[in-house]
């Protein structure tokens, strides 16, 4: 399992740069992927991102597969106009809560900030034996469950 790169390392900075460039290129697309549109906002030709950066790909997969408890999510607060970052409760019937007051006016931009927050929140050894909990024995990752 690939470690989450530490703060200040060149690996981490390279991932952030690549992610940033992908996000910028996806602005205007009715969808999103961590890939680079050759023409911004146009998916005719896409390169880079998760297709060409195996470490970035694996780190993103790790982040995406985390348990819903406390997981960051995007909440649209004005249709096609405003978005904020929320955090899932992991408890059925308890809705997500906003994590801060920042309001985004681009639905893609928020993807990058969540990536940065997750890099800060996940320990380098996330998912490795030193983080073993009883929950591992009863699927508390909730990974395949809806």
């Amino acid at each position, binding site marked *: 399992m690939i470690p989450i790169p530490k703060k200040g390392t060149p690996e981490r900075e390279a991932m952030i740069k690549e992610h940033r460039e992908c996000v910028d290129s996806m602005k205007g697309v*009715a969808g999103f992927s*961590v890939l680079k549109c050759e023409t911004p906002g146009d998916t*005719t030709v896409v390169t880079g991102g*998760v297709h060409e950066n195996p470490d970035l790909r694996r780190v993103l997969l790790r982040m995406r597969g985390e348990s*819903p408890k406390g997981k960051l999510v995007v909440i649209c607060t004005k249709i096609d106009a405003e*978005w904020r970052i929320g955090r899932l409760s992991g408890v059925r*019937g308890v*809705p997500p809560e906003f994590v801060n007051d920042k309001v985004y006016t681009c639905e893609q931009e928020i993807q990058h900030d969540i990536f940065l927050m997750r890099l800060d929140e996940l320990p380098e050894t996330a998912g490795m034996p030193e983080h073993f909990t009883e929950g591992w024995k009863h699927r508390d990752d909730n*990974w395949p469950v*809806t």
Partner: protein
Amino acid sequence: MCAMRLTGYADKFSVHPGDEIKFYVNCDGPAEFKAEIVQMIHGDTNPRGPGFIEKPVEAAANGTYKGRKQIIHGGSYGYVEDAPQFHVESFTLQCYIWPTTPKTHPRYWKHGAQGLVTKWMDGKGYGLFINEEGCLELRINGHKITTGAPIRDHAWHFVAATFDAATGDVTLYHEPQVVYALDPVIEPVKTRIKTTIEHTEAPVALAAYVEKISDDPLGASSLPVGVWFTGKYNGKIDSPRILKKALSRFEIEQMKLGAQPGLTERRNSGPTGELSGLIVAAWDFWDGISTLKAKDNGPYRFDAQLVNCPTRALTGYNWSGQNFDWKYAKKEYGGIHFHDDDVDNARWSEDVVWTVPEDIKSRFYALKVTTTDGDEDYLPFWVVPKIGKEQSKIAVMVPTISYMAYANEHVACNAGGAELFVYRVPIMQHQNMFLAEHREYGGSIYDTHTDGSGICMSSRLRPILSIRPKYDHFLAQAPWQYPADLHLIYWLEQMGYEYDVITDEDVTYDGLARLENYNVVITGSHPEHNSGTQLDALHNYTQRGGRLMYMGADAWYWVHSYHPAYDDIGRGVITEMRRCESGIRTWRAEPGEYYHQGTGELGGMWRFRGRSLYSVAGVGMTNEGFDISTYYSRTPDSNDPRVAFAFEGISYDEPLGNFGLVGGGCAGLELDIVDVTLGSPPHTLAVATSAGRHTEAYLLVMEDFGFNQQGLDGTVHPRVRGDVAFHETPNGGACFSFSSIAFCGSLPWNNGDNNISKLVGNVLNHFMQDGPLPQPPADAIKHRGRADYESPALASTAS
């Protein structure tokens, strides 16, 4: 955090001209709301498209209405009205249970005690419960007796309690049916309580208990009206019994057999003569599985009314693993699984009634409700012509079963893996936020219940906040299902076509009669969920010369049936599906639980019922991914004169649909391909393909491989693509398949002036002509194999 103060639904999805449609509105706060009938044209607010478009409709129902709050009393239970026989002095209560959430998180939406078999309200009466700590509890009036032993979840337990009024002796039994090496022994709890049971008018409740009986107007939507049930239980119950005497443990064992209605030469209704006289109720949940009654085979016939459609046709405590179809082993299928978020009918009172004019056009409509404070909701419905009074040559078949399957979907906030599907952080709309808090609005067939078990039924008699305009779905970060189908409607309107609309429901119940008077039938973007009679009708239609334009992908996939127990309140009220042995499944049915409770038919994929999805329109779904879309390129097949009509004005080399309001291209989300070995007719032309262009988020469906392996994604796998396809059917009919859910999202691009619009227009103009389509060239009539008699493993590339 999120307040949707206006929600509602209609009593019908499809309504005929001249008929009445009723709307039920929850207006929580504002004193009044405005209601207007509108025609729905375009529901997508994306600034790169034409934007939201609706058309006002003059209607007698338009006006301002008094607002009132209406709530859903969610969660399933059974009840029997109060009767003198339940006013016992002594009793025995017993049943098997398989609880799924015996103990819940303190913040869980319905944290607290759960009722099992109760005749208890406000500290009066008696009943078996699971208490807040997850232990078995007997209540007699205000007395609570517990074993103190936490009940294991997802395991069968036998539980019983006796009370002898004369002596005050109480015994509480908790007997796990699965015992592990280090489990402590749970001894029966014996105590003595000197009390006389106080009886109330509260009904007997199964899987719940009565909180109060009141004339609060909010109780009008409960069943029975005015009775508020709480303590909704999550899990299975099997074989509950009530007797009017404190039985011995041996007699309790005998009563597990129930009232034994199958015996001949019978003299009584119990396992013994003595017990016969003591039975108050002995419910056999295996009896009447397709109904909404829990049958009491005891002497008083206290059949319990089941509310909110708990799941039946599930294995009981005694399932042997020898029979997998409940119809042939009913007595092993006595488990009813109750859920605290089941809902079959919101049961709201009507607020707006409209008699649809006789001369109205068949179209997409909605009741738009608003308040002066800015609240807004749309309650969609479809005006469908009566059979024989069709208004157009074109019919749009609205995939309402699929809309129901996705109704009020919770995947973005429930599933750890949701981001892995969509390859980005999901975006929740305000509807999702509301639903995250209001689980009583029920989930979709993609979700699991609040207890983690799969949802296999969906009702249309509730506000369905995902069947709304201005709603982007997390899967697409764009419209999906209803609002995505409005891309097609916008295009038809923009191009000036006259069209009728019909729904899955109409085709399911009326069969070919709903289709045969149209020259062409156009599908929605994602008609994934289908009834058998609907597929029959489509086959009969295309075989008789009908033309089918399949505008999307992942269709004809899952077996659905409407639950017959709701036929008396309307067509297609509840749809049922089971996620069986294969297919894309967000949950998976348990062993032995593959057969529908309503119709008894085998659930799962039509493909595994021997009904290939490829056989309906010539293509079948092989892959899905939800990040971004791409475009199609023409293939040599597109130069075949048989299909020349489709490509007039489109050059061979131009990219087809490298633009769009869903993923940025016409080929995306879920994609179908031609496969003549799986049911595509051998003469099918694959006229365009997106091969080689999809991202790694796109993955091959699991029914197409039997062994986990690398190389399943869109960057490498040859079957991860979409194929636009055409084939002729007998008698001048044909099918044209566009094979991508994202496809319709390209139609509105540049106000409909684009090459996807051109392609679809060419096909529609050809298909809508009167009479049979022109015959193909004579040399097209020839013998064809499936794989041309050549094993793919031996095929030479130099052929």
